[in-house]
């Protein structure tokens, strides 16, 4: 078996890299793939919290590279989802505790008996970022429809494009708020895609359910009713090669809007006939 190594990165912090990693990882595992999540945010680890595994971590990635344990010992298996395991970051060290070569080696080893290795990248473009992308051949760039997040994503895309090892990189637009887009207060999905000139892999709506799912340590993909969960499940399907349409996030219109839509459609039909 030769698994795919996908890095999840963004440039800017707080746009949802870790949430995305946890959810896509869980969704891929639920679909029957063997998945390892690697947290490379050494010193600021959080992926364990989002997965609800914080109490079960014995060894970290630093213990692996400093040979205090074997790689297999450091992988924490998710009890609810045995296909999913986590290689946690150390909380007491910094990004220099691991080198690019070491991460590359870990990815190579994990590739042998897993379908997907998802690398959760730290914010920034320094050593932590360089480490995280070292072993990856694919990338998902997470951004939100905000100025600074888009600008940073553009920098990241530039860096990824210059790297031969990264074969594909796609855009995941997170925290989309359809009500703000409808009032022209937020850039639309099309605007962001046009600005960044990057293929989309997912559109995730802003969802307050994310907060409670983080608090519970249970990724939102496990909630069948959540729209964000549905969007993340669709991303996982697209990663697996399925063609899934993007969710329609447009706000339900009021009666007048619906009537207008109806007439506009009719007028278009009439015009087409003429």
């Amino acid at each position: 078996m030769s698994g795919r190594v996908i890095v999840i990165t963004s440039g800017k912090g707080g746009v949802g890299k870790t949430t995305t990693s946890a959810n896509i990882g869980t969704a891929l595992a639920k679909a029957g793939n063997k998945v390892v999540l690697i947290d490379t945010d050494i010193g600021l680890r959080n992926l364990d919290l989002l997965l609800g595994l914080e109490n079960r971590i014995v060894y970290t990635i630093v213990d692996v590279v400093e040979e205090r344990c074997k790689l297999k010992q450091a992988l924490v298996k998710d009890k609810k989802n045995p296909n999913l395991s986590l290689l946690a970051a150390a909380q007491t060290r910094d990004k220099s505790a691991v080198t690019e070569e070491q991460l590359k080696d870990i990815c190579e080893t994990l590739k042998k008996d897993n379908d997907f290795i998802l690398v959760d990248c730290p914010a920034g473009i320094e050593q932590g970022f360089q480490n995280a992308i070292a072993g990856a051949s694919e990338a998902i760039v997470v951004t939100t429809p905000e100025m600074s997040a888009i600008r940073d994503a553009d920098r990241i895309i530039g860096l990824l494009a210059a790297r031969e090892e990264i074969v594909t990189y796609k855009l995941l637009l997170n925290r989309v708020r359809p009500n703000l887009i409808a009032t022209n207060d937020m850039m639309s999905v099309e605007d962001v895609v046009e600005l960044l000139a990057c293929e989309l892999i997912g559109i995730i709506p802003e969802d307050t359910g994310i907060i409670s799912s983080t608090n519970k340590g249970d990724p939102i993909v496990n909630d069948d009713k959540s729209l964000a969960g549905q969007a993340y499940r669709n991303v996982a399907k697209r990663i697996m090669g399925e063609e899934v349409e993007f969710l329609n996030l447009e706000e339900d219109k009021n009666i007048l809007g619906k009537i207008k839509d109806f007439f506009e459609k009719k007028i278009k039909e009439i015009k087409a006939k003429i």
Partner: protein
Amino acid sequence: MSFFTDFYNKVFSFFKPQENPESNVKDVARSRLKLVLMQDRTNLTPKILEQMRGELIDLLSKYVELDKDLLELNFEQEGDQVALMLSIPVIRAKDEKEIEEALKKDALIKGIQLAEDEEDIEEIEESAETNNNDNENSSEETIDNSANTELCNETEESVETENNSESSADNDTSNEEHENNNEKEENQEQNTSSN
């Protein structure tokens, strides 16, 4: 048909809340980002872009008479490639004689520039300070001139007394040529005499 659609639009625009174009935050964000991303990608600052625009005007106006105020220099994105788009409103093409004249002038100016450069080297040896001032002045003028044709007329007068006529002469060629021909010759005479 058109009566029907007009009526329909009127009715709905009556019910629709009035949209203020200035409050369209989305478009503001998009255009701001567009510019900033182009600058990030190309490493070209607005100052350098303005300089590039000025130099292009100087070059092109040797061959055609163009509307400098309407000349647009933009970066446009097509896929993952960035293209430099130059839109030049041409008033009229110059005839052979004019082009020849412009080229001659250009050669003359370059000759003066060379002579000046040589002198500069001598001047550096004599006094570095005065030379520095000259350079600063000339760089400022080129930017002013390319940005605004009115400005260049003003600076021109002040330049006449100074040693560096190269920038003003440059702009004259691109500006109202016939009127400025005489002035320029005077300029050059002054220059050579002062040199």
